[in-house]
């Protein structure tokens, strides 16, 4: 055991707490662009927390889920941006 495994859980808890901040911005952002920025930040924080939790539980599957989540959230962000730009 190289470092204390509690460290991973503390880091993941901090990242989830910061994800709550971006959910506040999604809730009260005045324009649609603000909400998309909050969603993008939320996706990045969730991917980062999934990588840390994969190391905490010794599960490689969590990191595979993080890869797929990053790619699919990118596609979702691009579609929302296209919708804001010129409609569906």
């Amino acid at each position, binding site marked *: 055991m190289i470092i204390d495994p509690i460290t991973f859980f503390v*880091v993941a808890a901090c990242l989830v707490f910061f994800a709550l901040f971006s959910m506040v*911005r999604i809730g009260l952002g005045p324009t649609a662009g603000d909400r998309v920025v909050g969603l*993008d930040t939320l996706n990045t*924080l969730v991917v980062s927390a999934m*990588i840390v939790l994969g*190391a905490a539980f010794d599960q490689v599957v969590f990191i595979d889920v993080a*890869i797929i989540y990053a790619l699919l959230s990118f596609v979702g962000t691009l579609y929302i*941006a296209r919708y804001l730009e010129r409609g569906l």
Partner: protein
Amino acid sequence: MHIVLYVLFGIGVAFNGLGAIALLRFPDVYTRLHGATKCTTFGSIFTAVAVIIYGFARGGAQYHTLAIHAIIALLALLITNPTGSHAIARASYRSGIKPVGAVVDKLEDRS
């Protein structure tokens, strides 16, 4: 080896927190995008690098697999995140959102 991992996790969590605070405190879309995207990308690089170093230093086939998959996840994050923020900025400009306090708009006749 302990110290390196703790420092990397500390830098990563600090920059992710700065990005979240920037999302709450800045006045309009473009400054929020500026703060949130760059800070969370930088912080995620550091937390992922800490996990990669942990996997390679722990040894064994399972932990090497974990480290290599973390490298792939980090590459996916590095490619997709700036591209997505660029698309968001262009879409919000073209949907008519102006920056707060802007006086001139030199992009207006070019887009």
